[in-house]
């Protein structure tokens, strides 16, 4: 039927229906009439039987196509997967993290989802009677933002602050804080599968704050664990 119709369109001048295009309401209705999922049996029956193909195709195309039951099932599954709407398909997700340095060599990463802003270390006001890992507070858009010295917090040896030092403003579940770091290296794209679990070793004090290790040496920080640390909770 479609074949005949298409032929007619080609032979005669364009039909009235085609000349009347576009009809947006029709297009919407047809789009919305799509069946969300089709049964496996329908898809399988749509794979052409070898006998239905013209001789030439039999010689070239179908000869390339595996005909056994297992292959046909795999092809049907593939067709089913590809016919799903986009959000149901499995996607490789690539996220990004911000890589930064603590001390001269240690490299850490903060997932982009927690990241708010990068600040230069400006007027950092020390606050008396606070733990050593609280560097002080800064005026951040009219609010006081507590700055955490991650080196102190992780009990790493202190080094002099250089021009490259930055404050990374992070936010997790409504809690916002600034992290004082010794330098920011840039954005790194990564996939969950590339992150290996942290190796526990003695003498490492910050293991519980590490999600995993990327690229052999970058420790991705677990913001939830870090910001929920009892040491940071003032009201408890």
């Amino acid at each position, binding site marked *: 039927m479609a074949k005949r119709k298409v032929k007619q369109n080609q032979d005669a001048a*364009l039909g009235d229906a085609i000349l009347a295009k*576009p009809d947006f309401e029709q297009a919407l209705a047809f789009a*919305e009439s799509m069946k969300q999922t089709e049964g496996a049996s329908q898809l399988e029956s749509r794979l052409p039987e070898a006998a239905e193909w013209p001789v030439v195709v039999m010689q070239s195309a179908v000869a390339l196509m595996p005909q056994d039951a297992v292959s046909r099932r795999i092809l049907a599954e593939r067709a089913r997967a590809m016919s799903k709407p986009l959000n149901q398909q499995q996607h490789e997700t690539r996220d990004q993290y911000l890589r930064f340095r603590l001390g001269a060599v240690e490299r850490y990463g903060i997932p982009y989802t927690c990241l708010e802003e990068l600040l230069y270390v400006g007027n950092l006001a020390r606050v008396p009677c606070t733990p050593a890992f609280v560097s002080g507070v800064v005026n951040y858009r009219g609010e006081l933002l507590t700055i955490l010295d991650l080196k102190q917090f992780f009990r790493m040896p202190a080094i002099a602050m250089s021009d490259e030092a930055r404050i990374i403003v992070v936010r997790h579940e409504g809690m916002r804080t600034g992290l004082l770091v010794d330098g920011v290296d840039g954005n790194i794209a990564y996939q969950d599968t590339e992150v290996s679990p942290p190796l526990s070793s003695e003498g490492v004090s910050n293991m519980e704050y590490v999600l995993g290790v990327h690229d052999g040496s970058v420790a991705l920080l677990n913001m939830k664990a870090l910001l929920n640390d009892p040491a940071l909770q003032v009201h408890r």
Partner: protein
Amino acid sequence: MGRIIGIVQVKGGVGRSTLATNLAAALARHGRTALIDADVPQGTSASWGKLREDSGRLGQLTVAGVADYRALVSKARELVAVNDFVVIDGPPRLAEVTRAIMVMSRLCLIPLGASAAEIWATADLVTTIKEASARRLDINARIVWNRFREHTRSARELGEAGEKQLGLTALHSKLGYRVAYSEALARGLSVAEWPDRHAQEEFAALVAEIKQQLGV
């Protein structure tokens, strides 16, 4: 009211964006043209448009990206009112977007390489055309053979057999297997702006045929 040209294919990597971008660039030399990239987030056509915009080559061309079929229909409605041509680059899926494009388009182009896998993939589009036809919706679809090696016997035979099997007619102009298409695309150019005379000529012939199909 402008004319909508949809480019659909459920298989990826058959040259939808190549066809869409080159056609849009060519039509923009004849009239106000819009290119809608409905293959977001991949967005090849939109990226091409951005490159073109950055180099100041857009001219009469507008490029937009849409994320779903509702956005597509409303964007098409908006752009068709102010353009002579609206080229829509579809996603590599038989999704709502693809169905909307097929019904909206005055001419629906299906790029296809002469390989068994691509011909099989197109069978799904044919099913959709039949479904539309059963609902009294006319879809004016044409195959555009792409990456075609005219001189090989298997390509010719597979091509003819494919048309017969699918029940779709193809445009006479075919696009060859040429580096010019990917090189031009990567630079925000069209093949008409790329120094490959064969590519320029074959694409110009295709554009002429498409304009004839559109009755312009």
